[in-house]
């Protein structure tokens, strides 16, 4: 196991805009400068592993990564030569159907890397070379990294790399990306190829198509149609393949020429359909595979064993995707994931809780009274505590997901669940985001929304992103538990289960609704690869888990901190007028002077064992304090918001104090309980520590079972928390979807809650 002599300098994650705006000219650079290389290949071919081996960093293996819009760049030095390597998303072809393909193609033609390293899975040579044929047609300087030659050997596949190199006309380096074997030679070859002229290779597509392509090339060359970007032949072929992006670009470039080309394509298509009963794109694919097969047959690849032989991975699949055992095992795995996440994270979560509790009490005793103290405790410490307290849980969740993903099991879950999810217009790969977001109750929509990156189809992905926040995440569970505990204490478990079930039904029906309306469209093909099972590497898991956790801390930490300070300010300001404050102070004075100084001293002592008079005095003062707090809350901006919303919210049974909590819940659902606590204790929570929030709600005239159910429904389904909203905007690529999510969910939840309340009070 020899590590390559690659020295990592830095790894930069870029955000790529599609199409690329900043064209960088890198031609005519002397050899002593940094060489720009790009790494491309099929998903699961070991691309990310090679990237990590070369640059010394580790991110992720598999076709998940954060590359729906991101791509990674790494730097390393090879024999005193500085090299800059870009990790392109995994793709099966260069036709612009998916984001990955668009990103890869745009990067190649716009950034013009000096050499492309095409990584190929040697145990699946034929299919992997399909992408290679398209690189050849594009003409970029190419080097082939023949990965997993060890696996291929075990499977009885013998490959002759020299012969392959000769027949393809590009260097081929056999490597093992995991151990770094062969990468030295690979980079030597890549450096040798870098900076060469782009030389498109011609592949014959049969008489009919070749004639049409020649005609089109003539026109394209004459009109200089897109020739600055693509080789003429590449453009012609993409036209024949009905490549949407190419057709659009063509129309923008020169609509006259584009029309002639499109007309030509229609003619050829009609002719081929009549004579051969085949689409041009089918004939193109057939010829590409024909080209590949002819190469492989010339002694490049020989199969020593029977091709039907079952490999270890297939044997595991016999059990894990078995029609009876598969689902049972899947339930155990998912349940285990929850057990692991919640039981393992319990202790660190409690540590963090007590740490923030300690921090709060320190601030309480050390800082002088005033707005700064109040802000630090209610705003900063509580706000940060709420978020950071979740970190261990999120971390274990990410670790579990990373294991499932890296091992290849996640693809099997998608395979088994697809039939059910398809009914609701979703995709098998939607399962995991739903579960992560709280499908078994407890979870988080933020990693849930991020996990939708495994979905390759935009519409199903968007439908998933918009409906996962309906699940009962870890922040909603305490609220639900509180309300159920207070109003339905006789059947707690049953109600908890019932509400989890309701969340699933509503989320799936909402997905169906979205897919029938705003996200209308046919189901995206489920042509998906089940990668062989692999042992995830410990280091890979660690880095991968930490990367995602850090993203959560950064995003949630900053956003929630800001929001909780804002909420604190809204609930504290504007303050009561000095006259009103003085009025309350006077009331307290009046009561205090009415009793003897001994009892006054006794009541203000910290002792619990006091005389009856002192206790009455305490209660009276506490009553005045509460009244003052209620007046202050009513007077504050938050109170005004709550009161303004009251005329509408009473339709669903919510009074103004509940409104404040619900508005606060938009920042983070955890805030609902603390805000309810504040609002219903009228300020001083500690004064009433003996009767819990639940008890207080049951005795409050504004609350009853119907209101509780209505509130539960509303809390489960209304606007996702702010962090999720930010995340939706990032993942969906547009703020519009965040706004849609906020308004759609809130209106939907309100209608549902109103229906529950109105029907509820009528039937009693």
């Amino acid at each position, binding site marked *: 196991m020899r590590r390559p002599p690659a020295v990592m300098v830095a790894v930069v994650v870029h955000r790529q805009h599609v199409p690329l705006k900043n064209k960088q000219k890198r031609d005519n650079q002397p050899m002593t400068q940094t060489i720009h290389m790009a790494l491309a290949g099929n998903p699961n071919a070991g691309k990310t592993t090679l990237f990590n081996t070369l640059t010394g960093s580790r991110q992720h293996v598999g076709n998940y990564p954060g590359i729906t819009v991101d791509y990674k760049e790494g730097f390393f030095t090879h024999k005193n030569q500085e090299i800059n390597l870009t990790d392109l998303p995994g793709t*099966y*072809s260069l*036709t612009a*159907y998916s984001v990955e393909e668009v990103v890869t193609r745009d990067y190649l033609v716009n950034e013009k890397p000096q050499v492309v390293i095409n990584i190929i899975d040697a*145990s*699946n*040579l*034929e*299919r992997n070379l*399909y*992408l290679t044929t398209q690189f050849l047609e594009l003409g970029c300087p190419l080097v082939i990294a023949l990965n997993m030659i060890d696996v291929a050997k075990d*499977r009885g*596949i013998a490959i002759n790399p020299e012969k392959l190199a000769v027949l393809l006309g590009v260097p081929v380096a056999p490597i093992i990306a995991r151990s770094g074997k062969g990468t030295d030679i690979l980079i030597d070859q890549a450096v040798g190829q870098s900076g060469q002229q782009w030389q498109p290779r011609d592949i014959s597509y049969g008489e009919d198509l070749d004639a049409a392509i020649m005609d089109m090339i003539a026109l394209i060359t004459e009109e200089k149609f897109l020739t600055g970007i693509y080789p003429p032949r590449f453009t012609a072929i993409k036209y024949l*393949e*009905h490549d949407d992006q190419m057709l659009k670009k063509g129309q923008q470039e020169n609509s006259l020429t584009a029309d002639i080309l499109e007309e030509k394509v229609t003619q050829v298509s009609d002719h081929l359909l009549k004579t051969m*009963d085949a*689409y041009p*794109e*089918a004939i193109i*694919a*057939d010829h590409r*595979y024909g080209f590949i097969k002819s190469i492989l047959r010339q002694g490049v690849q020989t199969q020593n064993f029977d*091709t*039907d032989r079952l490999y270890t991975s*297939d044997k595991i*699949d*016999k059990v894990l*995707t*078995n*029609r*009876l055992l*598969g*689902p049972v095992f899947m339930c155990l795995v998912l349940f285990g994931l929850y057990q692991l996440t919640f039981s393992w994270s319990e202790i660190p979560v409690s540590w963090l809780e007590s740490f923030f509790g300690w921090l709060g009490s320190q601030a309480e005793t050390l800082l002088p009274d005033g707005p700064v103290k109040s802000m630090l405790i209610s705003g900063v410490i509580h706000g940060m505590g709420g978020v950071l307290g979740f970190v261990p849980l999120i971390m274990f969740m990410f670790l579990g997901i990373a294991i499932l993903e890296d091992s290849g099991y996640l693809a099997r879950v998608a*395979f*088994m669940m*697809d*039939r*059910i999810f*398809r009914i609701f217009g979703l995709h*098998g790969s939607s399962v995991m985001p739903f579960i992560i977001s709280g499908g078994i109750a407890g979870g988080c929509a933020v990693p849930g929304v991020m996990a939708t990156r495994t979905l390759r189809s935009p519409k199903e992905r968007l439908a998933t992103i918009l409906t996962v926040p309906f699940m009962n995440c870890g922040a909603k569970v305490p609220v639900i538990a509180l309300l159920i505990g207070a109003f339905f204490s006789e059947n707690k478990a049953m109600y908890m289960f019932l509400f989890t079930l309701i969340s699933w039904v509503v989320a799936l029906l909402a997905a169906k609704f979205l897919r029938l309306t705003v996200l209308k469209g046919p*189901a*995206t*093909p*489920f*042509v*998906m*690869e*089940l990668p*062989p099972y692999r042992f995830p590497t410990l280091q890979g898991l660690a880095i991968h888990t930490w990367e995602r956790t850090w993203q959560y801390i950064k995003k949630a930490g900053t956003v929630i901190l800001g929001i909780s300070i804002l909420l604190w300010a809204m609930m504290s300001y504007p303050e009561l007028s000095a006259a009103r404050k003085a009025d309350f102070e006077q009331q307290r004075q009046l009561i205090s002077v009415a009793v003897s100084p001994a009892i006054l001293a006794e009541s203000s002592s910290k002792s619990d064992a006091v005389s009856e008079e002192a206790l009455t005095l305490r209660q009276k003062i506490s009553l005045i304090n509460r009244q003052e707090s209620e007046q202050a809350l009513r007077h504050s901006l938050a109170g005004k918001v709550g009161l303004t919303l009251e005329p509408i919210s009473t339709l669903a049974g919510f009074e103004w104090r509940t409104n404040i909590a619900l508005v606060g819940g938009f920042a983070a659902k955890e805030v609902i309980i603390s805000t309810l606590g504040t609002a219903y204790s009228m300020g001083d929570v500690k004064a009433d520590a003996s009767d819990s929030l639940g008890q207080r709600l049951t005795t409050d005239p504004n609350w009853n079972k119907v209101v509780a159910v209505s509130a539960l429904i509303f809390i489960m389904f209304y606007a996702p928390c702010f962090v999720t909203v930010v995340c939706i905007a990032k993942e969906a690529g547009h703020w519009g979807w965040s706004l849609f999510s906020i308004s759609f969910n809130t209106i939907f939840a309100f209608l549902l809650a109103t229906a529950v309340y109105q029907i509820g009070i009528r039937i009693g």
Partner: protein
Amino acid sequence: MPEINLRQMKKDQSGTISAIKVGGELGLRMREMGLVAGTRITIQGRAPLNDPVALRVMGGILTLRNNEADHITVFVEDKV
């Protein structure tokens, strides 16, 4: 060798694709994954609800929904 629809193939049955009659994205996705006329496939198994189906193709495993498999016809081999 009888020619049947891929949907009708049984578990562990092998055959060679005779035609794929679909264009657009679905056709393209199938082709780029190696499903072209002349490719040999073996049914690896079906999901618990009988859909989708898993195929062994060119040393890898692919999954397809039944309604997508409908576009593919296969010359099946007699079981030995």
